């Protein structure tokens, strides 16, 4: 058992290393992309201040709380992009037939198609985001318990993100029609930059309980400030478990229905 974990870890690191080597070859792109992401981060951060220059509270959230939410969003978003970058290339691999060559190898295909393209550029940003996040959190009076719950729910959010990425992979197996499934995930996730309560009733409900962006991002922050009900905490863990199992099942069904390219 332990040997297996070691081996998978080794393969994971090897893929990551190769991914690093490949991206490292284009320095101009690295510079521009990182610059772009930093610009976007600053601008959207600025919007928060712009919004709060007009009002003290939105939907029951104060400036400090919204800032922490935004930083939590950035952390979760960047972390998943960092880890699951390879999902963006999945469709190309299916169409070109490369997927077949991956399926025939003696390791779980997820090691390649899910986490095989770790984007280390994002790691450069993740670290400052992380420290920035901690900085703002520790400015508030937070109990140890709330902080612990917050961390658990952030991890929970990452599990939901994993489930979404696996859904995208499964979709890629079932149809080649969709070339932007991952982008819709990103667009919907963007709704989570701001507290989910700002979206009115039905929309807020949908994005909390059905496509649980709210669970991923708003819930942990609410827990941090002690306004998350116990029921919601339970729901949060339940939904992540449910979505993850569902996504894996869908992937397995996808494999059976897979028709491969060409020949």
């Amino acid at each position, binding site marked *: 058992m332990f040997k297996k974990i070691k081996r998978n870890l080794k393969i994971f690191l090897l893929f990551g290393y190769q991914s690093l080597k490949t991206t490292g070859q*284009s320095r*101009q*792109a690295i510079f*521009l*992309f990182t*610059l*772009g992401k930093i*610009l*976007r981060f600053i*601008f*959207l951060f600025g*919007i928060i201040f*712009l*919004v709060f220059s*007009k*009002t*003290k*509270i*939105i*939907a029951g959230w104060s400036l400090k709380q919204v800032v922490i939410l935004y930083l939590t969003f950035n952390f979760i978003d960047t972390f998943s992009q960092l880890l699951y970058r390879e999902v963006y290339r999945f469709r190309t691999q299916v169409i070109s037939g490369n997927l077949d060559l991956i399926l025939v190898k003696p390791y779980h295909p997820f090691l390649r198609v899910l986490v095989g393209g770790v984007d280390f550029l994002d790691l450069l940003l993740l670290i400052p985001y992380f420290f920035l996040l901690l900085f703002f959190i520790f400015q508030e009076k937070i109990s140890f318990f709330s902080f612990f719950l917050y961390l658990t729910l952030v991890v929970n959010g990452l599990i939901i993100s994993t489930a979404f990425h696996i859904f995208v992979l499964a979709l890629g197996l079932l*149809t080649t*029609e*969709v*070339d*932007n*499934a991952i*982008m*819709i995930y990103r*667009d*919907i996730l*963007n*709704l989570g*930059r*701001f507290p989910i309560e*700002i*979206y*009115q009733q*039905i*929309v807020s409900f949908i994005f909390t309980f059905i496509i649980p962006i709210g669970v991923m991002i708003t819930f942990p922050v609410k827990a941090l400030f002690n306004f998350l009900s116990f029921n919601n905490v339970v729901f949060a863990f339940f939904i992540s478990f449910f979505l993850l199992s569902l996504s894996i099942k869908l992937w397995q069904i996808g494999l059976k229905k897979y028709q491969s390219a060409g020949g």
Partner: protein
Amino acid sequence: MGKYFSIFTLTLKEYFAYRLNFLIWRLRVFVGFLIPFFLWLTVIKEVKNFTGYDKQSIVSYFFFSHLLAYFILGTRTVDISSKIQNGEIINLLLKPMSFFYYYFFRDLADKILNLLLSFFEVFLFFKIFSISFPSANFQFLPFFFLFLTLGLFLSFYLNLLISFLGFWSTEVWAPRFIFFILISILAGNFFPLDLLPKKLFSLIILTPFPYLFFLPVKMISSPQTLMDKINIYFLFFMGSFWLIVFFFLARFFWQKGLKSFSFWGR
């Protein structure tokens, strides 16, 4: 002209070839609308009025902004760079039609389809959430059309310019990414530009960004608040200035690119 019309219809057909993809695209566009819309609606709830905006004008601003943003900014010219890379562009150059016209009509199909669909989607959305439908301000209609045309062409030449980078470098997505980010923040997608403090606003007026779609949107939603602050003719002058700059830049780099183009790639 017939050939350009068929390019138009062909582009439309391409969309419907993939149903699921099409639906997802519409969903994505719509979700993009929700974020700033609800954000500012929530702000308005707290503070009935700010910097000349009330509930009605904010709804109006985002409604028209959503309709016009893609109409102006949406483009097929993104595939020019890859066509340059893999040599496909040769096919286009050898056909008896203008390269610029070809892309213009392709874009037009794109834009009109999107305009109609967006209108329909937002209409449904407002109906479901009982939000009162904004009325267009026809007071300054001629200015609206003027700035709309300005924005359309400005966007067209700007997009072309970025695509022409493909003549000299394989890395076009990085600059395009930066461009995209700059636009999404500075063009008025996320918030009405005139919410900015005066100093910043006067700086932005000097850049090409507001002329893309902020100005036409303003002209049709709540022109008065803008007209009170700034001379409209100055704005028109600035917009035209940028249009001329990008027009010549695009043509210049096109000629240069064609000359230095060596059909590399596979």
